[in-house]
């Protein structure tokens, strides 16, 4: 297992099953034999939480696990730090199966390696903002001075300098979640688990917080596992996107890839409502080539979204652009391809059949 650390995989979830009920081990046999969630509930009165989950979380990336309520996403993230124990499977963190850990090593894992941000903030209401932010340090026995310095540093970093002596109840939701993030960051853990961290916030504040997370991530390069039910949020944040339905992974990969090649009708429905021009990037729709092309109308960046290119072309579908990355040409963008990519897959299937 130790060879897994080499290729940048931080957390590896292998064949993970979770069944809720009185005799999960017995029910597991039925699930492995192919029994679905509704059938299991009806015939055996057990709830299938997770079924055969296999996910690799790469170091320094944001892995977003997305699903609707009841899909098992919150259950899944709680397996990583063992707030919930699985029925079967492995959770390998830094090359070690955390399910074999005793209570002391588990506590060390939670104190040093993983920190967590919660949907409902879950701050300590009887502690000040500063005490909350430095909490992770005090838990592992560091001095009050260290906790205070670290807490102050990260509160400043998330934009809450000056609020140190307030109590969480005196802050707005967005500010409370900033404290939650500062608390997670001050533990200086390599892995951050974020359980619907922004779902309880207003849309505008949510966008702010997403930007804050991306900004922090550019600088800190943590391994983030982010849970959400919001596709726009998922597409904005994800380096690697995992879509969960009824406790099973139905598709995972690069978000652009999922958007252009949805695995099944469920995902097609899911992605049919989003603004594709804003989410898709030039890199995903360009023709990969190094030939300079003739009669190009200029240059665009590979990481640009399509919306900005449409603005640049003023809506002319006959234009062609050279696609640049790090000063080198990586492909050609034909506006005609771009327009087709904007049509959701379901409709484009219909076009192909016609």
């Amino acid at each position: 297992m130790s060879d897994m650390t080499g290729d940048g995989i931080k957390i590896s979830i292998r064949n993970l099953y979770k069944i809720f009920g009185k005799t999960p081990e017995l029910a597991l046999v039925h699930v492995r034999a192919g029994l679905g969630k509704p059938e299991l509930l009806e015939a055996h009165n057990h709830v299938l939480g997770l079924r055969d989950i296999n996910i690799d979380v790469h170091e320094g990336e944001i892995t977003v696990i997305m699903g609707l309520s009841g899909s098992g996403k919150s259950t899944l993230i709680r397996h990583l730090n063992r707030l919930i124990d699985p029925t079967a499977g492995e959770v390998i963190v830094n090359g070690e199966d955390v399910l074999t850990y005793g209570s002391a090593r588990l506590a060390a894992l939670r104190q040093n390696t993983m920190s967590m941000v919660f949907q409902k903030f879950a701050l300590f209401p009887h502690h000040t903002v500063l005490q909350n932010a430095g909490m992770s340090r005090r838990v592992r026995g560091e001095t009050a001075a260290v906790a205070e310095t670290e807490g102050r540093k990260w509160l400043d970093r998330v934009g809450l300098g000056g609020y140190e002596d307030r109590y969480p109840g005196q802050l707005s939701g967005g500010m409370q979640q900033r404290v939650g993030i500062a608390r997670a960051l001050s533990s200086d853990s390599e892995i951050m688990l974020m359980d619907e961290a922004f779902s309880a916030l207003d849309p505008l504040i949510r966008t702010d917080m997403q930007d804050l997370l991306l900004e922090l991530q550019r600088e800190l390069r943590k391994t983030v596992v982010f849970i959400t039910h919001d596709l726009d949020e998922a597409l904005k944040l994800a380096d690697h996107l995992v879509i969960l339905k009824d406790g099973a992974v139905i598709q995972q990969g690069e978000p652009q890839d999922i958007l252009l090649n949805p695995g099944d009708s469920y995902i097609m429905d899911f992605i049919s409502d989003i603004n594709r021009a804003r989410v898709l990037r030039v890199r995903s729709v360009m023709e990969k080539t190094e030939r300079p092309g003739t009669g190009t109308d200029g240059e665009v960046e590979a990481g640009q979204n399509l919306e900005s290119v449409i603005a640049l072309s003023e809506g002319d579908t006959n234009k062609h652009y050279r696609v640049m990355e790090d000063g080198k040409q990586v492909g050609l963008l034909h506006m005609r391809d771009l327009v087709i990519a904007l049509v959701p897959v379901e409709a484009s299937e219909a076009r192909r059949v016609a």
Partner: protein
Amino acid sequence: MAIYDRVFRATGLEGWCSSGGPSTGPLTMAEMVARANGTQAEGAPAPAVPFLQTPFPSLDTLHASCDAIPRSRDMTEAVEQGFLAIKNPLKVVLDPLTQPLSWMLDWSLEAFQAVPWFIMIPLLVAATWFASRKTGVTIFVALSFLFMAFIDYYDDAISTLSIVFVCTLISVLIGVPIGIAMSRSNLLQRAMIPVLDMLQTLPTFVYLIPLIYLFSVTESKLYGIAIILYAIVPVIRLTDLGIRLVDRDVIEAADAFGMSDRQKLWGVQVPLALPNIMAGINQTIMMSLAMVVIASLVSAPGLGVKVLAGIRNLELGTGLVAGFCIVLLAVLLDRSTKAALSRIDPSDRG
């Protein structure tokens, strides 16, 4: 011929019945009453009983037909003997265990009375101020004590206060850990709740009876135990409830950051349960004060003695004024602990 004779003949139990021999125990209740009234000579034949007045087949009625069945008085006698049989071993265990309670009560009583009034009253007023930080409550406490001192009830009030103080302290020292243990184990909670229900509903006089047998009436721990048994219930209940009511999300966060059970208990659960625990302590104080009058039956000093004197000697005035002083103590203890409670409530920091 007694009324149930036929039943025993029909079931063929006659032989077993007569093997019991003639009754030798104490008189039955009915016999005692009958003898006292002089209505029935012993051995007279029982009069015929009309059908509608058929007595319930109780121990005494059945005994009349069948000597082998014990009478009701034999049963109560057996309970008494049983209790007396375990009394001595129980005393060996309980006496040393509860002896510190006697010492604490006596010592505290002496201490409270040894401090002169002109130090004690300012001390109490200052304590109220530091606990509550409310001017109104503090002035009320000052006026109440001055009033009680003025009408010569100060010594009794201060004795009562001393008893309440010791009993509450011990209730908290025992009750909070029990409540914490209950909140952590559903099994213990299920076992404790009937016990707590019983302590709360059992009439006080009922558990005074075995206590009087166990301990001497001259020992302070007798009333101490009676008060504590009655008053400890709310602090246990509310500690258990308070800890169970702590927000599950907060507990999950504590777990996710790797807090040990001890860090979680003292750093999160107990502080967040504190408002409930304090409400339990407030109730415990109120209930121990309510027990003071009954405890005076078993030699507890204080205002209860005056109330008791009022009842015994029909001194209406003494009893009523002492009763009023108890109410005064209750109100001032309630107000000052509630004011202190509102200061520590973290939900107020919103």
